[in-house]
């Protein structure tokens, strides 16, 4: 079970509060986690990454285990602590305007 923390506006859009939990089959990567998020919460398609290019939206960052993973390959394995559910995968809005 993967734990994900969404930024507040996307929690509202997805009609959830607190962390969301996901089942991810196979390797746990940014791509597989985002695929699972979009499958479970289709209203989030296009809001975290581009519909077509799958590029991360510029003002969103991906953190886990006190590391910035935003620039890692989307197919790189996420830390074991994320894959095991010990630590959440954080999707964070960058501080830019207000």
């Amino acid at each position, binding site marked *: 079970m993967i734990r994900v923390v969404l*930024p*507040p*506006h*996307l929690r*509202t*859009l997805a009609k959830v509060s607190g962390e969301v939990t996901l089942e991810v089959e196979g390797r746990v990567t940014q791509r597989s986690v985002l695929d699972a998020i*979009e*499958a479970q919460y*289709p*209203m*989030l*398609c*296009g*809001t*975290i990454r*581009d*519909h*077509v290019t799958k590029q991360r*939206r510029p*003002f*969103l960052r991906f953190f886990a285990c006190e590391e910035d993973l935003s620039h890692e390959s989307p197919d790189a394995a996420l830390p074991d602590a994320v894959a095991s559910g010990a630590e959440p995968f954080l999707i964070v*809005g*960058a501080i*830019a*305007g207000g």
Partner: protein
Amino acid sequence: MSKVRVLVGTRKGAFILESDGKRENWEVSGPHFAGWEVYHMKGSPADPDRLYASQTSSWSGQVIQRSSDGGKTWETPGGGPGKSPQGWPIGESNKFVYDTSEKTGKPLTTHQFYDGTQHPWEFKRVWHLEPSLSDPDTVYAGVEDAALFRSTDGAASWQELSGLRGHGTGPYWQPGAGGMCLHTIILDPSDPGRIYIAISAAGAFRTDDGGITWKPINRGLRSQFLPDQDAEIGHCVHHVAMNPSRPGVLFMQKHWDVMRSDNAGDSWHEVSGNLPTDFGFVIDVHAHEPETVYVVPIKSDGEHYPPDGKLRVYRSRTGGNEWEALTNGLPQQNCYVNVLRDAMAVDTLDSCGVYFGTTGGQVYASSDAGDNWSPIVRDLPAVLSVEVQMLP
């Protein structure tokens, strides 16, 4: 007596205001989509409970919202389980993908960037949603970078009407200060095939075949920022308005100049007349008097506020050229707000109501065609758009 619903999009959410036909007491609901920019919200003329809203942010991009109960509840159409071949849900209501060349698969065209180089189209947001006059599930979207999309399934999916970008003038389009946006969509009630659109900064365009082919309609416009001041393409049109009873007559607020066309945009002539400044963003036409036109003059392109700190709507009862200042109830000192291009609308009650919103968060209304004004709300976030619906 009919009721009135005013749809207000702001920098930090949407608000819905309702009143009976007296238009004296208003109920305010919102913020809807709190914290997001709502560039535009509009109801279907065929079903007043069907609303569409463009919700956008720099962080999370575009979201399209739809209501089927007059704004009490909202949904992001296109979601729901089990719709893809894999059995996954599909969220495509915010998927705006530009057409590519059928021959090469490459981008259809490029446009001029701020530095003069050619630049590919990149989707940023929806500026304007225009529901069909007859079908609640058909809606048009004007987007940045400028293009026109249409949905025929209640905004669940979108297809570009790419004849607009593909007719050959794309390389001459360029972004204005607010971006390269398609901000005005006017459907001709007398001719289902005729649509007018306007783009900053490219100009106005018209289709007579439902959006397959388009032509520029900018003859008569002059713009000092262009090397060829009366060029066919490149004008910064801010807004265009039409009275539905006379669809061939158009009024335009350009970057500078208020213009009029009596032949469906084939040619334009200036009607700025005695306005204190002919820079501005909004323009609208009285619901029952097609020669009565409203603008809000703004000091200049460098100073986006009313001249002399006085918020004045100007009304012409002669189709332009002769304008009178309407000031009763509007602040006449120390007022430095702007009124953005989609932030004025009229109702169709016997005594025509006129509404506009400001970047200071006020929405002003007049229930007597502009003679007297009062704020129906006054402390909202900056207002981006105002639309009006009539309810039974």
